[in-house]
């Protein structure tokens, strides 16, 4: 009896579920196919499920190359939620995804891309080119969180590499009209511009530099921080003098 029950359950799920290699799309208000323009419009509560990703949105425009199944690019709008088979999760008001080159653009006030050990947030725009390992965040407040650092700026641009299923930052350029902020376990760094190189194990800070460690604050125009031992040197352009503030907390 139990065997028959499980067989019926299995057959039911086999009939209902999506098969491997299939892309299943459901919409509440239909699909408009524009054969000449080679795209179709998926309307209201759209859900796309494939081997590579799951996407839900209010409205989706899917561009195809030859036939409908041959989707090349997706433009989605309204409460977009994207999860890839790699475990990447993107959330935004608008999300464009190109299957051809694994390029994703996320737009919106609360744009988010979670790549497990890399978390990107912006109040405007996030771009990730997974085939080239490049990313860009733009907005008044953009934030990148890695396992070892938290970076805040208005523009964060860089490259990453997947090593043993972990995405590691190779290079980083952080800019801000106001001030960029980089935080590690022991340091807090502020500047107008910051550049990180994993190869050289160095963070360079340019203009309006402020480095804080424990009770020590150093102000200057330029700083170089060794990320291995977190030692740093700060210099000043004009006077070659830097300001050191030491706060004594021992009474």
């Amino acid at each position, binding site marked *: 009896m139990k065997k028959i029950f499980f067989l019926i359950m299995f057959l039911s799920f086999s009939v209902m579920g999506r098969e491997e290699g*299939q892309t299943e*799309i459901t919409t509440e208000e*239909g*699909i*408009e196919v524009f054969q000449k323009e080679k795209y179709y419009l998926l309307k209201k509560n759209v859900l796309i499920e494939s081997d590579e990703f799951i996407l839900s949105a209010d409205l989706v425009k899917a561009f195809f190359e030859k*036939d409908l*199944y041959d989707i090349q690019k997706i433009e989605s709008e309204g409460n977009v939620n994207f999860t890839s088979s790699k475990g990447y999760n993107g959330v935004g008001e608008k999300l464009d995804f190109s299957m051809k080159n694994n390029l994703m653009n996320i737009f919106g006030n609360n744009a988010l891309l979670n790549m497990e050990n890399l978390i990107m947030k912006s109040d405007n725009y996030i771009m990730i080119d997974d085939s080239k390992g490049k990313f860009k965040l733009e907005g008044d407040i953009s934030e990148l969180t890695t396992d070892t650092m938290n970076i805040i700026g208005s523009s964060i641009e860089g490259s990453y590499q997947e090593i043993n299923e972990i995405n590691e930052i190779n290079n980083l350029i952080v800019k801000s009209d106001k001030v960029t902020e980089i935080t590690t376990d022991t340091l807090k760094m502020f500047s107008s511009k910051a550049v990180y190189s994993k190869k050289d194990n160095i963070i360079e800070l340019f203009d309006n530099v402020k480095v804080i460690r424990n009770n020590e604050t150093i102000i200057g125009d330029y700083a170089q921080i060794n990320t291995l031992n977190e030692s740093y040197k700060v210099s000043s352009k004009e006077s070659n003098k830097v300001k050191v503030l030491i706060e004594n907390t021992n009474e």
Partner: protein
Amino acid sequence: MNNLLLINRKLILIIFFIISLFIIIFYTVKEGPFNKNLMNIKKEDYSFDIKNPKFTINGRDEEILIKARGASFISTHEILLEKNVIFKSNTFTLKSPEVYFNQKSQTAYSKKNTIFLSKGTTINSKGFEITNNGDNINFKGKTKLVLIK
């Protein structure tokens, strides 16, 4: 033992069995699926203006064959295609139980369940509308699209 009564009992059983058999055969023949369909088809056929309509229209790049079991004139240019309506071209097949077709504008729409089949594509919807010489197909209502590469 009364022999006369024994004979009667057997006879009654045989007669009852034969009558039952006749009744079953009669109802099976009368209510059988083939007979029922034939009768229905005849009734439906009389209600159509055109029986088994079959014609082609020019799509953007290809001819589209349209066929149905019956068609009725709605207005000068519009006909209602009914029962097993099929739009077929070299690249797709579209099936619906009821389709309104405008001969002048070469447009078609349906509010009934629709199945669209194309290479690697199956679409199930609650209706459709074909406009712009087949360039635009609008699948309406709750729609499910299955794509296979």
